[in-house]
């Protein structure tokens, strides 16, 4: 947890407000404790000082990440309650509720038990903060709309990213605060929609927090702040990697339509995930964009391909990319990502400046050169930090808005994909104005057959 007396070292460029930490909020609450009653920002209800007015959350997309985000929201402060759940698969809703409830009860000591011993244990009751009646569990492609009308205060958007631009627009239109998982879109039209939603959120004074979690990581924030404060001199080049193994896949089961099969393997289909570059390695590109501090890349050239993915469930995406982004003043951003098993793993970032080099990976944060520096502070739970800041901003009535930069980081990944798929050099403007829509709109969201794009061949695939 950062020191509340210090300004956050790296206020993202586009953030409008917020930056509150949980401790700051606790301090605010402690100050308020002197006053016997406080007025809630939610409808003027009056609550005792020791009792936080409830903030009702709704989760759209009840998979593992969505459930994780809801858990962090519930841990942000004791007033957060789970109000509604939405997914296209009903069993995921039930599992999510149970897992959230179990997570709120005290954790048991880990023991070496056989599976039989574990099965004998009685199930825990549903936690009071996770009571969601069946009437607020919504199933289907339009479930998000019903959830938005169910009386929630904050919406967590965690479906496959293809849906995100529409979900986000609907949530902001409905006047909800939003936690929006990354990436925010899978194509250019989607990014433009997200930028519109971000603008509207600002106008409506709604908080919009992104799932680009590294921006909420204490050690990464400290490192980027050192760079911004000039420790490595003028930035010359950036090299980021996300080289890892493949993600989980599900073989097609009898009775699954094309659409269901694709949703259950959403990471592997371009319209739903945007490719692994946009879905996973976008974190690395976001860090590139972060350190560029609002300076956008002019163009990108890249290579990519699909050499080790096999079988229907591996979808139509690539498994490796190598990209060069060209920023103004000759700054270059290099990126390499791979999802192939049994290869050298690397998920790190290198920032090369005129007077030094900064390096970050999961565990290390250091600067070498004329002025050396190593992060030796205590790191934090970045996912929790996202929600601590989101809910503190809501409580304080100081909305924060990650909207513009989160859309731009997503676009940086999309333009990289366009460059690799087509073999062309792609400009920022071309990507932003692209009419290539991978994801069909809500009027076409239905179960049934759905053709997918062929795997693109550079030099043959066209940009639109």
């Amino acid at each position: 947890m950062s020191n509340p007396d210090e300004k956050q070292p790296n206020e993202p460029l586009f953030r409008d407000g917020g930056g509150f930490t949980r401790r700051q909020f606790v301090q605010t609450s402690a100050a308020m404790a002197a006053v016997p009653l406080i007025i809630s920002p939610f409808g003027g209800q009056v609550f005792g000082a020791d009792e936080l007015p409830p903030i009702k959350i709704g989760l759209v997309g009840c998979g593992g990440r969505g459930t994780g985000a809801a858990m962090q929201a519930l841990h942000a402060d004791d007033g957060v309650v789970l109000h509604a759940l939405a997914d296209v698969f009903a069993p995921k809703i039930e599992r999510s509720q149970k897992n959230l409830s179990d997570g709120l009860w005290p954790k048991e000591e880990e023991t070496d038990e056989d599976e039989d011993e574990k099965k004998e244990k009685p199930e825990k009751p549903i936690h009071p903060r996770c009571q969601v009646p069946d009437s607020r569990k919504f199933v289907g492609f339009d479930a998000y709309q019903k959830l938005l009308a169910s009386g929630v205060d904050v919406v967590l958007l965690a479906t496959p990213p293809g849906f995100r631009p529409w979900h986000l627009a609907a949530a902001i239109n409905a006047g909800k605060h939003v936690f929006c998982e990354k990436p925010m879109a899978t194509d250019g039209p989607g990014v433009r929609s997200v930028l519109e939603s971000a603008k509207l959120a600002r106008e409506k004074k709604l908080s919009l927090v992104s799932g680009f979690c590294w921006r909420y990581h204490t050690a990464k924030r400290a490192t980027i702040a050192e760079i911004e404060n000039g420790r490595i001199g003028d930035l010359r080049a950036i090299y980021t990697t996300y080289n890892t193994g493949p993600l989980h896949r599900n073989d097609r089961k009898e009775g699954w339509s094309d659409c269901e099969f694709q949703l259950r393997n959403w990471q592997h289909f371009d319209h739903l995930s945007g490719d692994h570059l946009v879905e996973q390695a976008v974190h690395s590109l976001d860090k590139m964009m972060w350190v560029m501090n609002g300076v956008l890349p002019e163009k990108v050239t890249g290579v990519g391909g699909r050499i080790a993915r096999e079988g229907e469930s591996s979808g139509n995406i690539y498994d490796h990319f190598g990209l060069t982004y060209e920023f103004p003043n000759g700054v270059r951003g290099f990126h390499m990502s791979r999802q192939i098993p049994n290869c050298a793993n690397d998920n790190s970032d290198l920032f090369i400046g005129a007077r030094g080099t900064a390096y970050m990976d999961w565990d290390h944060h250091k600067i070498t050169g004329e002025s050396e520096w190593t992060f030796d502070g205590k790191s934090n739970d970045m996912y929790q930090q996202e929600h601590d800041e989101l809910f503190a901003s809501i409580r304080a009535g100081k909305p924060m808005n990650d909207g513009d930069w989160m859309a731009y980081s997503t676009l940086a990944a999309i333009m990289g994909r366009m460059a690799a798929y087509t073999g062309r050099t792609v400009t920022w403007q071309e990507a932003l104005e692209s009419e290539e829509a991978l994801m069909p709109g809500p009027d076409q969201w239905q179960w049934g057959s759905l053709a997918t794009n062929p795997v693109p061949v550079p030099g043959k695939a066209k940009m639109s």
Partner: protein
Amino acid sequence: MPTSLGRWSVLLCGSSLLGAASFAPLAGQEPAAVVTPSAAALPAAYLETLPGTRVSIRMVPIPPADGKPGFWLSECEITWDAYDLFIFGIDGARDREGDAVDAYTRPSKPYIPPDRGFGHEGYPVISSSFKNAKQFCRWLSAKTRNGYRLPTVAEWRYAAGAGSTGKWCFGDDPAQLGDYAWFDGNADWTTHPVRKKKPNAWGVYDAHGNAGEWCVEVGKDGKRRVVLCGGTFEGQTDEVTLSALERPEERWQMSDPQIPKSKWWLSDAPFAGLRILRPFPVTEVETDAKKKPGPDSSGKTSEQSATVGSGSSPQKEER
């Protein structure tokens, strides 16, 4: 090379395989005698080569003591070379999660690189949950038909100490620690390839520091708590001792974005690894001796370990 455990026991009674003949005369001794053979009478160290591969794990003998049976312990922390065969099913099984081959559940695909980019070949496994480590033992047991498991804390401390009564296997002089261990003082915040430092008197490498090693702590209440022994590369001098013990904490999975969090991978424990144990084959003498187990014995026989969760073939071989 030892084959099935059953055959092992039979052979031990009447042959001299692998230098284990010294156990044969035991059959003629008083049944309840405490077995305390000299070092020369120990079964030999051996290489467990994973079938169909060139990957092997060297097992060194740890002598029985104080009524507790002896065992082999892997001389090194288990490295990715062996773990990869298990995780990715590149032991001949199809490369898919939840595969029914061998009737084993394999770990899920890790979302983050579990080796953290520290290094792979020859580097100790890290980021492994206890369940993952235990499952590796089951898988290895079925593959090799030898019964492997994780050590208890008592077994670990005994084997890691190799008779030392000091804080470390070499005594109490912290100036020597760098000769034996990767720790905060010399590791530069990363794991290092195994077997680069001095071993203890019984040939066990890297017990202090480098990766922590999953063990079972048998409590007086009978609970088998899971703990990491030996400290890690992050540990300071006094945190990599023979008595060092770390209990899993929630923050070891802090960066796992999913709920439920992975059962197999600890996103924030780039120090959680393992070393494996194989009990000496049970002779009649030892079986009787086992009726008086030490205060911290797991109570599991080698046969149980060999067959827990395994497919039918090992059992058929043995019975």
